[in-house]
């Protein structure tokens, strides 16, 4: 009977895991992505219900245990529901980071609970996964909190570093692994405490030296870490569902991290060791005037846009920071109503995460077929009358085509091929690579110095009044 029961539970876990895989697969296409999420939810509900049935069947749980489960689900679930419903779409990356932090924390706690019960009778193989779970889970927890803090602006987004920081990090990692290995031989609570403390500190010291502009890559990496920690937790409590789901997420986070790093032409190692600074800090330094730069007033820019037959909008981080997605959509609608062909060029790392720009524009009701990926849109710039660049910098810099610059080899949008270019930007400040953008001094380029939100609203107003 117990054998049959276990088989049924395992089969439900298998079905849940299949739902997760199918759900991710359906996310290949925007048209089926919602169904993918629903399939994934169904799998999750099945897995959780199966676990509760399993717990009842085992008959070990106390009344206090039930109270703990119910209270935990109500409080945690309620908090998750509330924050997920109320968060602004521009603040979404940091919320994902917070959810990632608590997931990692939960995985670590599963192992900590198991470890605190360890006797010397536990097989070494189990202890290794327990230890890995504690270390990875704790690093993810503190690291993700710091990453969220940096994105939210609670912690300076500039790289925080000091001489010898890398050596300190290496030492911390060595201590965690060393003490951990020792504790496998003879488990003790003090060792556990040291491993947890050192891992938490390592999470902080790993993320602090990384600039705000690189934070999406870090969050993606930490997402992969959490997946791995959850898989380890699956080993610890011998639960197939956790192992499969955790491994799936570990792989997905790894792939995403690599895609993002590739798009910036940087290695993951380079980013993790703290590369060239943060765009947030650099942008404020330079003033709004420079040699060979032409500025343009809202009315002139509006006329160019209104009489163009093809306009490509190039949104960047500045649009996300100014939360100007609704204004850009309004301007695009206005131009479309005049018969202008409008599309959007989305660089793979535009915004704060790959695909973040798509989400922001989707929020403003921009239909996704208008959003073009880099390879698709690049040949179209030559046939474009006006390229409207909004708060995008390094991803448009022609310097990337020459060797010897900080961004050499980075794939860019061929904005300079357009017949004329209007750049909306607050100042001549640098992007996160910290170099001048040669696009801005191109004779075809006019700079419209304004905050993205206000600038776009002005443009829309001018289009209406001038050519209404």
């Amino acid at each position: 009977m117990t054998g049959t029961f276990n088989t049924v539970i395992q089969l439900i876990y298998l079905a849940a895991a299949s739902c997760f895989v199918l759900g991710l697969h359906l996310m290949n296409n925007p048209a089926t992505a919602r169904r993918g999420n629903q399939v994934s939810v169904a799998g999750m509900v099945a897995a959780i219900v199966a676990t509760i049935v399993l717990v009842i069947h085992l008959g070990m749980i106390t009344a206090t245990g039930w109270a703990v489960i119910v209270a935990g689900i109500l409080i945690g679930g309620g908090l998750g529901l509330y924050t997920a419903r109320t968060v602004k779409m521009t603040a979404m990356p940091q919320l994902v980071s917070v959810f990632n932090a608590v997931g990692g924390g939960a995985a670590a706690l599963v192992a900590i609970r198991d470890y605190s019960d360890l006797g010397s009778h536990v097989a070494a193989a189990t202890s290794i996964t327990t230890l890995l779970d504690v270390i990875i889970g704790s690093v993810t927890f503190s690291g993700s909190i710091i990453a969220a803090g940096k994105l939210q602006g609670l912690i300076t987004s500039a790289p925080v570093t000091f001489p010898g920081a890398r050596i300190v990090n290496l030492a911390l990692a060595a201590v965690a692994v060393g003490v951990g290995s020792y504790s496998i031989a003879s488990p003790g609570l003090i060792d556990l405490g040291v491993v947890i403390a050192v891992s938490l500190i390592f999470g902080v010291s790993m993320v602090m030296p990384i600039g705000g502009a690189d934070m999406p890559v870090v969050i993606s990496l930490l997402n992969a870490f959490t997946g791995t920690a959850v898989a380890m937790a699956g080993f610890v409590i011998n639960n197939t569902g956790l192992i499969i789901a955790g491994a799936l997420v570990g792989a997905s986070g790894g792939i995403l991290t690599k895609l993002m790093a590739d798009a910036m032409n940087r290695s993951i190692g380079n980013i993790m060791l703290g590369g060239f600074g943060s765009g947030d800090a650099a942008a404020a330094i330079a003033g709004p005037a420079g040699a060979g730069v032409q500025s343009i007033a809202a009315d002139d820019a509006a006329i160019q846009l209104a009489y163009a037959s093809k306009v490509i909008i190039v949104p960047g981080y500045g649009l996300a920071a100014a939360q100007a997605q609704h204004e850009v959509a309004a301007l695009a609608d206005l131009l479309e109503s005049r018969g202008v062909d409008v599309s959007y060029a989305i660089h793979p790392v535009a915004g704060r995460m790959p695909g973040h720009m798509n989400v922001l524009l989707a929020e403003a009701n921009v239909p996704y077929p208008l959003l073009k990926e880099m390879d698709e849109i690049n040949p179209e710039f030559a046939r474009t009358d006006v390229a409207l660049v909004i708060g995008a910098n390094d991803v448009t810099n022609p310097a990337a085509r020459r060797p010897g610059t900080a961004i050499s080899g980075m794939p860019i949008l061929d904005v300079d091929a357009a017949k004329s270019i209007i750049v909306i930007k607050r100042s001549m400040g640098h992007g996160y690579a910290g170099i001048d953008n040669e696009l801005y001094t191109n004779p075809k380029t006019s700079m419209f110095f304004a905050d993205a939100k206000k600038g776009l609203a002005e443009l829309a107003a001018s289009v209406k009044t001038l050519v209404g």
Partner: protein
Amino acid sequence: MLLTDFIIFVLSLWVGFEVISKVPATLHTPLMSAANSIHGIVLAGGIVIAATAHNVVGYILAFVAVAFAAMNVVGGYVVTGRMLKMFKRRAVPASQAPAIDPSSNGSSSKAGASA
């Protein structure tokens, strides 16, 4: 048993690589959020340790684990759903856009491939 678990782990990694490398950049942020919700399955782990807890420390650890995991899984799925709900093929008139005539929409449904 451990070997079986390990085999499952490695094969799942490969499935993850294969399934995810095919997702277009458009959906990377929702995908990250969806993957983030999936590791909320650690809630099952929290429930198991709550069931086997037998002292105050065990209950406290289990409570925090369950609460953390529940926040991860519920919040993760809801925020992913919110993002995906916004992906539309053709927009309804943008009600939140200021000073726009709703009838101005829909004049151009072409995908921008024409010159």
